């Protein structure tokens, strides 16, 4: 009997203590730890809608062009230069001497293969829409390619920052499935290990063509609990976290271990109203109801009191940092009486029932709190809001794509980091686009017109008209341009990125 007990407890002890994996080889000093709230679904960035996939992509892959974080202009990267030969042809010169992680050289063939893969309708790649204007890619020589576009394509260069370069060999030999878990890029880091929903381990690519990253290892930890993330940051376990809730800023700053940094980011938040009736008939198909919603909410007050000022009120969904933003358009101001009157005119004198699908606060700071305030305001105007909280971002996005998110849902758009009004208007305001719950032929005309004009002054005029239309038609319930808040450990130096793409290869040890 005693033996059984002893061996039994020994077994438990063995299980409990004996088996965990050996401690990692890297030390704390040469390792940078970055936390994400949720994991990526794939390591194939153009096949994912998640911001996390874009961020991870920057570490292992390179883009033809990147944004200079100071000037916010697009500068060469894997491409050395580009020029428009005519309205529909662009020539791009490529960098020489760049190698993929598997040792093969980066050439024009890889660029062609990468674009063709994304553009192949059969593959159903998420990023296809971003590049749909490209008709074909032509190899001129090993390090020169020509892009043929479908009509003039003014944001061609901007879009070069939105696709990671994969290798032709991998695309042809290994195939799509393999690429979901095995990223082979030319980037500053290589993927060592991916423990799904737990951790990514990256190691520095010592043969990188550009400046070498200061830290040899980057651990990307998935920590779903915000409270736990903050605890990790201020106890020294994690070096960089993003999307810090505004109410937690003082906790971090007072900890002596870490500090916060904020930056306006290229992301606008709003509530989508199902004007297009994608989820079936609903009150928001009536413009007056949409206007009433916009008039009901005191967004300025919410920014001031709930977000501690961390937001920039906008009249529509176009971000102040994007090209084409019309600063002259004044946002809606709260006017409950007018809102009630409009609701009554629309046939809802006694109020109207609305289901509100809420996503998790993965990218939008303070989302849960601002949502409560918005719902409270809407209620005052006669909207009886039933909140439906969806806790997982992947599910939430899937639901939106599946037309199941109406009649009202929380949304924010990061422009795929393209600083241009087109990057939101096309995806969010054009009929039948994946995320658009708004459909208006007049708007479509303006969007197409803007896309097909190379003259930037004329484009700005077109976008001003589009914003006026979106405002007058109260296309969505407009909120604000976001400011991101990062938590940064005092042992490192790091600048908050305006495009929301955290780049761990730019983090340096703090000078003492």
């Amino acid at each position, binding site marked *: *009997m005693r033996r059984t007990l002893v061996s039994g407890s020994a077994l438990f002890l063995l299980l*409990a203590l004996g088996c*965990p994996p050996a401690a990692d080889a890297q030390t704390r000093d040469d390792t940078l730890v970055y936390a994400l709230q949720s994991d990526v679904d794939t390591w194939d960035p153009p096949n994912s809608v998640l911001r996390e996939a874009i961020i991870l992509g920057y570490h292992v892959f390179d883009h033809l062009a990147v944004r200079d974080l100071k000037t916010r202009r697009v500068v060469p990267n894997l491409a050395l230069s580009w020029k428009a030969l005519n309205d529909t042809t662009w020539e791009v010169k490529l960098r020489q001497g760049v190698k993929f992680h598997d040792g093969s050289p980066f050439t024009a063939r890889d660029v062609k293969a990468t674009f063709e893969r994304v553009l192949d309708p059969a593959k159903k790649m998420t990023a296809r829409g971003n590049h749909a204007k490209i008709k074909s890619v032509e190899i001129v020589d090993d390090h020169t390619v020509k892009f043929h576009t479908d009509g003039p394509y003014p944001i061609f260069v901007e879009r070069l920052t939105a696709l990671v370069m994969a290798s032709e060999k991998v695309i042809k030999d290994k195939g799509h*499935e393999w690429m979901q878990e095995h990223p082979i890029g030319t980037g500053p880091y290589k993927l060592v290990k991916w423990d*799904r929903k*737990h951790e990514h381990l990256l190691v520095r690519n010592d043969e990188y063509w550009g400046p070498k990253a200061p830290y040899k290892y980057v651990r990307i930890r998935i920590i779903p609990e915000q*409270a736990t993330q903050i605890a990790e940051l201020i106890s020294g376990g994690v070096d960089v976290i993003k999307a810090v809730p505004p109410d937690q800023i003082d906790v971090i700053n007072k*900890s002596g271990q870490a500090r916060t940094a904020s930056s306006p980011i290229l992301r606008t938040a709003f509530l989508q109203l199902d004007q297009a009736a994608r989820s079936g008939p609903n009150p928001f198909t009536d413009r007056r109801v949409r206007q009433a919603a916009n008039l009901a909410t005191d967004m300025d007050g919410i920014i001031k009191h709930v977000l501690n000022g961390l937001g920039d009120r906008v009249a529509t969904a176009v971000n102040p940092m994007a090209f084409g933003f019309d600063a002259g358009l004044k946002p809606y101001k709260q006017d409950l009486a007018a809102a009630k009157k409009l609701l009554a005119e629309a046939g809802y004198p006694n109020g109207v029932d609305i289901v509100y699908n809420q996503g998790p606060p993965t990218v939008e700071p303070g989302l849960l709190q601002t949502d409560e305030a918005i719902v409270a305001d809407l209620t005052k105007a006669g909207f009886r809001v039933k909140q439906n909280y969806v806790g997982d971002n992947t599910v939430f996005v899937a639901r939106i794509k599946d037309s199941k998110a109406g009649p009202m849902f929380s949304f924010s758009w990061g422009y795929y980091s393209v600083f241009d009004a087109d990057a939101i208007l096309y995806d969010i305001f054009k009929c039948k686009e994946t995320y658009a719950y708004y459909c208006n032929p007049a708007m479509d005309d303006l969007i197409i017109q803007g896309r097909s004009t190379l003259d930037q002054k004329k484009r700005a005029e077109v976008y001003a008209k589009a914003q006026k239309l979106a405002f007058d038609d109260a296309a969505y319930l407009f909120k604000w341009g976001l400011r991101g808040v990062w938590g940064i450990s005092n042992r490192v130096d790091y600048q908050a990125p305006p495009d929301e793409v955290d780049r761990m290869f730019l983090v340096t040890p703090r000078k003492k």
Partner: protein
Amino acid sequence: MKRYALRQLLQLGVVVVGISMLAFAILHVIGDPVLLLLPLNAGKEEYERYHKLLGLDKPVYVQYWKFASRAVQGDFGKSWYTDTPAFTLVLERMPPTLYLTSAGLVAALLIALPLGILAALKRHSLVDNLCTMLAVAGQAMPIFWLGIMLIIVFAVRLKALPASGYGTWQHFLMPAFTLGAFLAPLTMRLVRSGVIEIMNMDYIRTARAKGVGENTVVVKHAFRNACIPIITVLGLQFGQLLGGAIVTETVFAWPGVATLTVESIRNQDFPVVQCAVVLLALIIVSVNFLVDMIVGLIDPRIRLG
């Protein structure tokens, strides 16, 4: 003993079949998988096509048979979200959960055994009352609250332990204690009542009357026999522990199967949910079987009963 083992094994088989049916029912009775997969505005034709594709046009028992015969070979289909086999996904995440639950069990025993025995021996004393209060209080505490408090005290304030994650033995301490605290109250009550019961038995009184030392009585006679219900319960607690593990894993960012299951439930990723539920149940059932065997070995009466 052989007959006893066979009988238990048979019961185990029945339970496993029952559980696989329940897991199957989650998908096919409660929800319509086609509706979950298709957009709302999909046409009737598309619906029918998917319906056929998933084999839903066949009678339920045929569907179940297909599910079960594949499941036996470890084939639960591919995850709807990540396109990887559900079985691989679940298996990958199984070890951390098993380590966590085992460690939780050990922690629970470390708390519950001494307190339970102490309470039983000093029955109706202040110590006993305190232990009982502690147990009741422990039961009344939501464990995620305890987990967050531990993080704040030991990681943030004292900086003595890593706040979350998985890897070294330090990472085990807080999650194991959290889970242990979840299980300890019940175990303690059990130990207490078990020991009390046995201390009143004739043979203990006889032993005492014979002048055997009190310590020997407690250790050799009483505790030994009190072990039987404790072991039994700990076996069954494995299922309960998993419930606690879900929350513990979430708070401590522990990469286990419990969080995977919750996530998959939220994602409505049913192949993964089914696979996880069946595998977890299999483990629980096997643990119970082992426990029955151990108890049967210790106490021959049980074999006959």
